[in-house]
């Protein structure tokens, strides 16, 4: 009997998915109702638990699945508070006049892409929109490829397509250079020495954007996306400490705490940390992107986990009270 049930549910699901409109978006009112229903369901689980019916792990899984899936269809905006460290980053970028030259160092590889790619997209979109000239490089071999993926994506945005940024004039990708922090150090005397050719093998001197770009003194801002070594720490220690250029960074959530000290000593001009840093950056630059679609599911799933911790503790309290009553 049980077997048939699961097949029936599966069949029903397939039919529902097939007849659903694509893309599926539910109205703000309906979204609020779904959220409230989810909340009521959690309260119901709490009540059940207090009454002594412990729920199984599958119920937890169901709630996690629902809290990660449903928000994708919801059409209401979660107000996002931009943290001070992202605000500093945004302010520094906003101060740059059009035509400013920004060095973007992509120091990460695909495993960190879920967290850093949205930041990269938001940064590239912002730069193109505000006519900042972007010079891309990587201390990690796969960094420049990640940059290209981001550019390909951003160029699809209508407003940016209208601006039609040109390679070599509005942006350039210098590629990867091995040597870790020594690359930064030697860029202090000459960019050309470290990157004689760009990623497409064009000579440094034949690229219009790089005309007159000799070292850090010709760069207005450095934006570093980093997930480890070499990365933000090295950029701060060399580019900021020795050459006095401003550096802002986007980091993975795991790495962010290790660069907080630089933020408080004002060596680092702004920091976007992990997924939340990404959506705050999108919020600050007012261009919702991939990270912003993750805000709701992330918040929902987090709330659900916290709710279940509370439910678990409620169950514990109840069992305490029971055992005490038993003793008396």
């Amino acid at each position: 009997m049980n077997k048939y049930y699961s097949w029936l549910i599966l069949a029903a699901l397939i039919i529902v998915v097939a007849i659903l409109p694509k893309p599926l978006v539910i109205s703000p009112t309906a979204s609020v109702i779904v959220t409230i229903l989810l909340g009521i369901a959690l309260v119901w689980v709490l009540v059940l638990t207090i009454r002594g019916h412990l729920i199984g792990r599958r119920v937890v899984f169901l709630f996690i699945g629902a809290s990660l899936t449903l928000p994708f269809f919801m059409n209401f905006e979660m107000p996002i508070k931009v943290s001070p460290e992202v605000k500093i980053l945004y302010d520094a970028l906003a101060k740059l006049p059009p035509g400013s030259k920004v060095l973007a160092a992509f120091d990460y590889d695909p495993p960190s892409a879920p967290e850093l790619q949205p930041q990269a997209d938001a940064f590239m979109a912002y730069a193109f929109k505000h006519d900042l000239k972007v010079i891309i490089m990587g201390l990690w071999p796969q960094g420049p490829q990640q940059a290209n993926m981001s550019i390909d994506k951003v160029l699809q945005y209508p407003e940016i397509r209208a601006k039609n940024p040109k390679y070599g004039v509005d942006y350039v990708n210098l590629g990867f250079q091995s040597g870790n922090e020594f690359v930064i150090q030697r860029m202090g005397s000459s960019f050309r020495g470290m990157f004689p050719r760009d990623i497409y093998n064009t000579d440094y001197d034949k690229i219009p954007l790089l005309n007159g770009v000799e070292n850090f003194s010709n760069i207005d801002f450095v934006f570093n996306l980093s997930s480890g070594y070499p990365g933000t720490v090295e950029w701060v220690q060399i580019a900021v400490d020795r050459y006095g250029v401003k550096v802002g960074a986007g980091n993975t959530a795991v790495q962010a705490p290790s660069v907080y000290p630089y933020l408080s000593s004002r060596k680092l001009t702004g920091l976007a940390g992990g997924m939340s840093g990404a959506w705050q950056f999108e919020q600050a630059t007012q261009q919702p992107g991939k990270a912003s679609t993750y805000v709701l599911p992330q918040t929902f799933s987090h709330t659900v986990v916290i709710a279940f911790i509370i439910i678990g503790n409620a169950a514990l309290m109840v069992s305490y009270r029971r055992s005490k009553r038993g003793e008396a």
Partner: protein
Amino acid sequence: MDGAVISTWLAALLTLGIMSFVYKDNLYYKICEAIFIGISAGYWFITYFWDSLYRIAWIGVVHEGRYVLLGGVVLGAMMLMRLFGKIGWIARWPLAFIVGATAGLKMMVYFTTNAMAQIHGTVDDTMVAFGGGDLYDLIGRLVILIGTVTGLIYFYFSKEHKGLFGGVAKVGTWFLMITFGASFGYTVMSRMSLLLGRIEFLLTDWLKLVK
């Protein structure tokens, strides 16, 4: 149907198969698991073959004349003697070499990077604390000092955890628990992002329910 559609469907079906495990073990999962084991074992088999056997050993010895690599080949061959019952015991030699070298190598690496560097870090942190800084930092650095020392006392095996010593060791376990709680809480969010990525793939690329 073009290649991209087939790829998406294949990836989606495999994704669902693995996910079905959290409900319960079932035939669908078993099939995905079997494919996973077979494909990944084969992947590494081939990778080892080309990257180690061919690129390091063959190219190294035959084309670059690095005869020192023959030592590795000899050890590897001894390893394969396992397959021939009688002289299988010779496989212990390469094992003995690897275990010995690992012990020597890791002993020094851990001693410097884990023990010495961390002791240095603790002393350094607390030195800064008493040199200045605000209350927030001062308390924090005192906590580092107390936490590290009591934590070490917890790991001290030569004395029974009784009396004052036991009390201090207990504080050590508290610090360990706070540490574990914090790192656990810290990873929850990034783990959710991973699942979010797969769900987004299913909803967007496969079902096209989300734009």
